[in-house]
């Protein structure tokens, strides 16, 4: 690859980063050495940013947290390895809510900046893959770039919606989690944020291979690009009515209905459907499981072996507490406490165990719906990107409730894609299509058709 191109890309990224704070690290040296190696492959000539929680060998990977400052993983995440094998060039790590704990990227770790929305820099990029969506939107088309991002409760769909990009969250287990710094191990999925559907489909094919190092990896050898340009006539779409009523900005609901009319006009069929269990129980159950799992995942961060540390003083209780209290952000502490509580003896039956039973119910409800419909349709988020100043002061509960559309889907591990479908007050509205497990193809076909008929994004 032309090294000039790489230098130019890095320069542009640095400029954007200065304004919008979308990177935690820009790795120029690594990018140059990858370009020199330049294996020929399906992703040759393409640039990739990687969400900070996805490990890149030798590049500082902190999951947006001060407690991992200085951690340079001795291995690549599987998805990163695949990109490199296909000739893709990694240019940097993108900013995120600390460990994924947030939907607006305002819960960045101690010392990390909140990324600003490229369309209106007073507004949020969404979270937790805020930096990924930000740089994807901000970069000019010619600088061929796709972001590798991650979703636990909606962290791909949300920033994609707020920044007006494509965000594809695959089925749980399709893409290996080896090298992903965990948030919720039964909920985390790695997926692309891209300017267009074909880019997203192409990278999915590259990264979706089965990986034996991840016990939960199912993988697929599918060619997702083969679903582009397919006819969608006769496909059945189930519009989730619960997400278009109270709690959703009417302007957003209106854009979604417009999109539904469009699909109707192409010969796809639609009908409304209500998912009461997903709506009522899915969100709290998601948070319980996510917090229980993450509070155990975060136990390993204690100033030994890697990451931030302190002077070795005192016994282990004192030392661990000192390190963790100093370097964890507020939201991380809050979730650690909530997650620890929900799995404590005496409470775990009512919270943790019950939440896992709710997951079964929610999955059952979606699957029943997905027998009637090829895909389900909903807004990605109940609002457009809010002003950063306004959300900073909201209590945590309000933050959590903003995940109403995405969290139940993520709890069920269903694949979903967010596509821009219009604007409101100058900010993009995101539409979410949801498929059954391992049915990414249908999502790609529908999203691709929509995108082509709406003149690109």
């Amino acid at each position: 690859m032309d090294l000039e191109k790489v230098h130019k890309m890095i320069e542009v990224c640095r400029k954007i980063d200065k304004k919008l704070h979308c990177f935690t690290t820009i790795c120029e040296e690594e990018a140059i050495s990858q370009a020199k190696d330049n294996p020929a492959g399906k992703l040759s000539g393409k640039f990739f940013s990687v969400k900070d929680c996805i490990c890149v060998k030798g590049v500082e990977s902190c999951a947006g947290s001060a407690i991992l400052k200085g951690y340079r993983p001795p291995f690549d995440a599987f998805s990163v390895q695949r990109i490199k094998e296909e000739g893709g060039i990694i240019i940097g790590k993108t900013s995120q809510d600390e460990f994924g704990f947030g939907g607006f990227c305002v819960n960045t770790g101690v010392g990390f900046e909140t990324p600003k929305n490229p369309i209106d820099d007073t507004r949020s990029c969404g979270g937790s893959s805020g930096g990924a969506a930000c740089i994807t939107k901000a970069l000019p088309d010619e600088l061929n770039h796709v972001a590798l991002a991650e979703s636990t409760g909606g962290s791909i769909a949300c920033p994609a919606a707020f920044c007006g990009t494509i965000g594809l969250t695959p089925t749980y287990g399709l893409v290996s989690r080896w090298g992903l710094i965990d948030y919720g191990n039964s909920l985390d999925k790695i997926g692309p944020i891209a300017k267009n559907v074909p880019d997203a489909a192409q990278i999915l094919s590259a990264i979706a291979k089965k990986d034996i190092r991840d016990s939960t990896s199912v993988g697929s050898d599918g060619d997702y690009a083969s679903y582009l340009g397919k006819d969608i006539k006769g496909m059945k779409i189930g519009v989730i009515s619960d997400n278009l009523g109270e709690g959703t900005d009417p302007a957003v609901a209106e854009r979604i209905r417009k999109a539904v009319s469009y699909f109707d006009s192409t010969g796809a069929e639609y009908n409304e459907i209500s998912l009461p269990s997903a709506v009522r129980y899915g969100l709290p159950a998601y948070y319980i499981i996510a917090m229980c799992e993450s509070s155990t995942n975060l136990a390993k961060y204690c100033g030994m072996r890697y990451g931030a540390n302190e002077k070795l003083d005192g016994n282990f209780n004192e030392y661990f507490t000192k390190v963790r209290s100093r370097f964890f952000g507020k939201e991380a502490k809050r979730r650690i406490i909530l997650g620890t509580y929900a799995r404590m003896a005496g409470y775990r039956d009512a919270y943790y165990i019950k939440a896992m039973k709710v997951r079964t119910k929610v999955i059952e409800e979606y699957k029943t719906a997905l027998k009637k419909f090829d895909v389900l349709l909903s807004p990605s988020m109940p609002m457009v990107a809010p002003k950063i100043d306004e959300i900073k002061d909201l209590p945590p509960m309000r933050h959590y409730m903003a995940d109403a559309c995405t969290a139940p889907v993520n709890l069920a591990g269903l694949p979903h894609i967010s596509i821009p479908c219009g604007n409101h007050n100058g900010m993009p509205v995101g539409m979410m299509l949801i498929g059954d497990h391992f049915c990414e193809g249908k999502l790609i076909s529908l999203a691709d058709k929509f995108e082509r008929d709406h003149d690109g994004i």
Partner: protein
Amino acid sequence: MLDKDMIRKIAKNAKVELTEEETKEFLPQIEDVLEWFKAIENAPDMEMSMHPIKIRDAFRDDIVEQSMPKEYALQGTDHKKDGYFKGPRAV
């Protein structure tokens, strides 16, 4: 019942120390969230799902693989001595 003592107890368990201010701030927030969590009480009783999809039997064969070179293992920290990691006192 959640109170300041309970929060402190949980924080201690999780090796996180909250300032007096943080404890005061967190208490109502955490109470709200826990109350909200209770909504799942009314959900029907079903089998637990450990993962969104059923995954079984991911085994490894008992074959020795090359370990990471010692230098790689130790490179991430200054807390080391004579090939060992250094850690805080156990007592």
